[in-house]
């Protein structure tokens, strides 16, 4: 194959691979937004805490990774339910802005607690995946990324079905649309919220474990979530497929910018490109690519 084409393909594939991680993070954001109409700024902390939990399960308690994974998901999910119960529940009915701010408070709180209990070292996650990449015709893909792509695809499918065909999914969509009305129709809004937070944290656990596999595990892992903001917005904040497509797109754009523009117009373009794209997209389509436009009436 021609080398420049191979270069392009290589960049694209690894971009999509990183994008799948963004997609996983964005999925957590979208889930909470879909049901509660708020952006959860503590999602990054959920990711980091989950990675630490899994790390300790594997290293300290010597549990095999494949058992630790569902266990971590469960524990993090419980943390989500707990956060909802203690912090978010009292905010029911408050303005969106206040609720978002409460999640910012929660994020600061969780990050510091993680610092106290897990320490500030850089940890090395005992990766269950082989370190060498998988080679397909000159294009390289790591096993971690392969699994994370698979995981985000499976989760997307699962949530698609969940929202479309189950009662709970319907309740969630209804709650997002109008809390008061669905409450009147007999939906237990509180349960919907608790479940949403549990699920979102559960997804965060998956994202966190995959991230810890490719990065260094420390408290700073929480900040990766900020890189996933553009992915979430790009797809529109309430669309599950949007989150996945947005994530993949941002990963792709970022990598292509890094591979081509970084050398041409000076360094650091790679990291700012997603935000430029976000800026432009919001100018043209204020509700993201797949978001729903709202019509306002007085």
């Amino acid at each position, binding site marked *: 194959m021609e080398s420049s084409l191979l270069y392009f393909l290589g960049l694209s594939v690894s971009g999509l691979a990183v994008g799948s991680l963004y997609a996983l993070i964005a999925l957590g954001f979208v889930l909470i937004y879909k049901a509660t109409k708020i952006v959860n700024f503590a999602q990054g902390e959920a990711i980091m805490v989950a990675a630490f939990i899994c790390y300790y399960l594997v290293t300290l308690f010597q549990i095999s990774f494949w058992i630790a994974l569902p266990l971590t998901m469960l524990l993090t999910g419980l943390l989500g339910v707990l956060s909802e119960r203690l912090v978010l529940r009292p905010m029911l009915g408050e303005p969106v802005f206040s609720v978002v701010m409460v999640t910012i408070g929660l994020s600061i709180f969780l990050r*510091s607690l993680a610092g106290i209990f897990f320490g500030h070292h850089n940890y090395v996650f005992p990766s269950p995946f082989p370190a060498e990449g998988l080679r397909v015709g000159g294009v390289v893909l790591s096993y971690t990324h392969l699994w994370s792509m698979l995981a985000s695809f499976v989760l997307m499918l699962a949530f698609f079905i969940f929202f479309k065909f189950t009662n709970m999914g319907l309740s969630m969509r209804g709650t997002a649309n109008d809390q008061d009305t669905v409450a009147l129709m007999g939906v237990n809004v509180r349960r919907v919220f608790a479940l949403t937070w549990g699920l979102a944290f559960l997804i965060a656990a998956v994202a966190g474990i995959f991230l810890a596999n490719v990065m260094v595990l420390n408290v700073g892992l929480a900040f990766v979530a900020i890189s996933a903001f553009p992915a979430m917005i790009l797809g529109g904040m309430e669309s599950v497929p949007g989150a996945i497509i947005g994530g993949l797109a941002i990963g792709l754009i970022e990598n292509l910018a890094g591979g081509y523009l970084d050398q041409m117009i000076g360094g650091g373009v790679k990291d700012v490109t997603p935000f430029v794209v976000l800026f432009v997209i919001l100018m043209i389509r204020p509700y993201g690519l797949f978001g729903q436009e709202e019509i306002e009436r007085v």
Partner: protein
Amino acid sequence: MPIRSKTFNESYYEDIKLFRTIWIKFWAVIFVAALVLLPYFGDPYFVYLVNLSCLAAVAAVGLNILTGYTGLISLGHAAFVAIGAYTTANLANHLGTPFWINLPAAGLIAAVAGAIVGIPCLRLKGLYLAMITMSFGVLVEYVVITWEGLTGGVRGMSVPAISILGYKLSSDEQLYFFLIVITALLLFAANNITRTRVGRAFVAIRDRDVAAEAIGVNLTYYKVLSFAISSFYAGVAGGLYAYTIRHIHPDHFTLLLSIQYITMIIVGGMGSIVGSIFGAVFIVVVPEFIKLFAQASARVFPVLEGRYDEEWNIAAFGLLIILFLIFEPGGLYSIWNRIKIGFKNWPFTY
């Protein structure tokens, strides 16, 4: 002759007056006297904390005008502070202009930037607005790091001390008086803005923008104006920061700073000028109290000795945000109001 009750106003003017009763005047004088005497009683560390509170208060008031009064959420306030800081630094370093040109210039350039960001943001609301202002913040950070000729890039930039008539203000106490005066003027101006037609238009937009437009508030004009005023304050705060710390660096003006400002107005009280001051002081000073508390409790409970970790400071900070939002959404300002009314009506309950 009418019987005078505790708030008795004969005209609309009296109702919106700045100092409505003799007591308010009295306390204002006491307060000013305390401010003037403060550096003679506090050590430089304390004075410096007050200075930091002034810087924070100016920026927080700006954000409160945008977010608290107009209801537009911004996660990019730090970007405007950065614009102001770098404007001041460049003017002072390259043109040698005095502070009374630099600070307004910092404010104006930030205001222009704010208006430019504000125009396209007219279509966006709520969280989408928060996200776009956040990405603006990231862009500004990138520009600051990359445009080395103007900003010194990652090496940062030094700023000369303020000089008034050839007299250099470099010590904390000298800066203190300067900052207090500037801050007071800016807060006074902000208070007036919010009392006028402009301020009422902002509040109308916050409460329901479509309805506001229906009763004749020009949304485009007032939203952009709100962005501009808010950014003006941020810009001046940036200029003051440059003069106080005397070395500016891109690492300071990040998303975390924007979040800090938001925290200030939440803790202090949204839609309240006094609240912004409370919030700013609170955020700067509260870690001190947490630390004192931790040390005191270590003395009482020896088990805790040596267990204190600075992280607890930050954890407590996060917890305070949560607790305020849950239990006191009006912030410190509403606590203050309750205490004030309690005293005023004493011995009656209302």
